[in-house]
């Protein structure tokens, strides 16, 4: 315990990462000011024809998909009884909780009147809209994640009585988490069901909700592996030995699950093409891009995962997890930005402005900094000495 505090104290301040983060924060602050004084148009290339850009495509859609690690891990451990991965729960919950908070934070930038975000629930309910369901589930799941994460914070604060009650809720929260996640991961896909004339037929399909949900499971699994790799590189000294022991088994177990889920996802995507008889589109330019996404970011990682699991080679699995995470990002951007408005002539197509990318980087940097703050202080990567009871 003590060497952890010592390590915390002795960290140098002026590391290249810190400097880079500081610059991003300054720029981000300026852009935020500009956004909330001169409107969305001042900091983005969004227009009436392309109302949604990378804030929705990346921050919201990809952010939510990559934060699926939370429900996937807690389901695996608590519901499917995979006790051997117990150490992976807290980091996954932390990533999930941080992911969702950043999604809501990013939403404040993208939405025209952010102070009215509670309106759909309190003032006038538009229940016919998929967005209503997404909003409701994201809000609820955010609270569920907060509760699931609170034991780590409470341990750090030493409030053991509250911690005891919260720990008793874990099972209930896990089941609620899985339900809410199934709902909004799928309905994020259902958002685009409403615009069949704008999304390219290869990406548009009545199965969109299912594609989004299944790919979010793969994303969750890969994110856990990816996140544990990063944590192991950067914050190894904060890990207790149980965490270190389970480092590779988690990779194998989750890698195997990810391989199976990716195989299922690939099959479903092919079924989607068959359902709408879109085979002819595969031979067009868009077809090539679609096959690039499918073979490069679904088949390839699935294959690499299976190789890694068969040969017990964690490096291949960790590489596959990175590719899957990028694949999810590509798929979400494809659906929301790249293949959207596919018939609009090329010169009028949308491309994010530097400031938009700047604000997205700003939000990611905040996420990383908060993650570092929590992981170095709260018992996430290690067991707090006073609370040995394993629930």
């Amino acid at each position, binding site marked *: 315990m003590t060497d952890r505090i010592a390590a915390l104290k002795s960290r140098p301040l002026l590391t290249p990462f810190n400097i880079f983060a500081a610059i991003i924060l300054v720029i981000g602050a300026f852009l935020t000011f500009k956004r909330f004084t001169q409107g969305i148009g001042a900091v983005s290339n969004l227009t009436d024809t392309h109302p949604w850009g990378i804030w929705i495509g990346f921050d919201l859609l990809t952010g939510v998909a990559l934060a699926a690690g939370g429900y996937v891990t807690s389901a695996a451990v608590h519901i499917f009884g995979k006790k051997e991965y117990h150490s992976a729960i807290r980091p996954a919950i932390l990533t999930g909780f941080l992911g969702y908070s950043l999604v809501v934070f990013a939403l404040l930038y993208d939405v025209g009147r952010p102070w009215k975000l509670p309106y759909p629930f309190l003032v006038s309910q538009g229940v016919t809209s998929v967005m209503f369901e997404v909003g409701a589930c994201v809000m609820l799941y955010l609270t569920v994640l907060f509760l699931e994460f609170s034991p780590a914070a409470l341990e750090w604060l030493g409030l053991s009585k509250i911690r005891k009650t919260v720990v008793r809720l874990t099972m209930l929260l896990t089941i609620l988490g899985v339900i809410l996640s199934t709902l909004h991961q799928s309905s994020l896909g259902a958002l685009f069901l409403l615009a069949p004339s704008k999304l390219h037929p290869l990406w548009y399909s009545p199965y969109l909700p299912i594609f989004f949900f299944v790919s979010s499971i793969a994303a969750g699994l890969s994110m856990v592996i990816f996140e544990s790799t990063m944590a192991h590189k950067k914050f190894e000294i904060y890990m207790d030995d149980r965490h270190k022991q389970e480092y590779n*088994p988690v990779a*194998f*177990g989750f890698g*195997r699950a990810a*391989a*199976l889920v990716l*195989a*299922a996802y690939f*099959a479903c995507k*092919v*079924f989607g093409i*068959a*359902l*709408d*008889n879109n085979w*002819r589109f595969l031979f067009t330019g868009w077809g090539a891009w679609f096959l690039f996404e499918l073979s490069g970011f679904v088949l390839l990682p699935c294959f690499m995962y*299976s190789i890694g*699991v*068969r040969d*017990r080679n964690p490096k291949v699995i960790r590489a596959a997890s990175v590719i899957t995470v990028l694949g999810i990002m590509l798929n979400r951007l494809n659906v929301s930005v790249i293949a959207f408005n596919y018939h609009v002539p090329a010169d009028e197509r949308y491309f994010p402005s530097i400031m938009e990318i700047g604000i997205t980087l700003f939000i990611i940097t905040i996420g990383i900094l908060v993650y570092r703050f929590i992981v170095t202080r709260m018992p996430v990567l290690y067991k707090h000495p006073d609370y040995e009871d394993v629930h």
Partner: protein
Amino acid sequence: MEGIHTLQEFMFQTKGIIYILAVGYLLGFVWFWRFLKMDKKREQ
């Protein structure tokens, strides 16, 4: 698409192909599951 004029024909073609794909997928998935067998003894 040239031979397809009615919803019935459209569904017949698409559902037909999907069933074939589904059978192939199920066989493949079982093989893939075994392919990834993580028998305990090779755990460490």
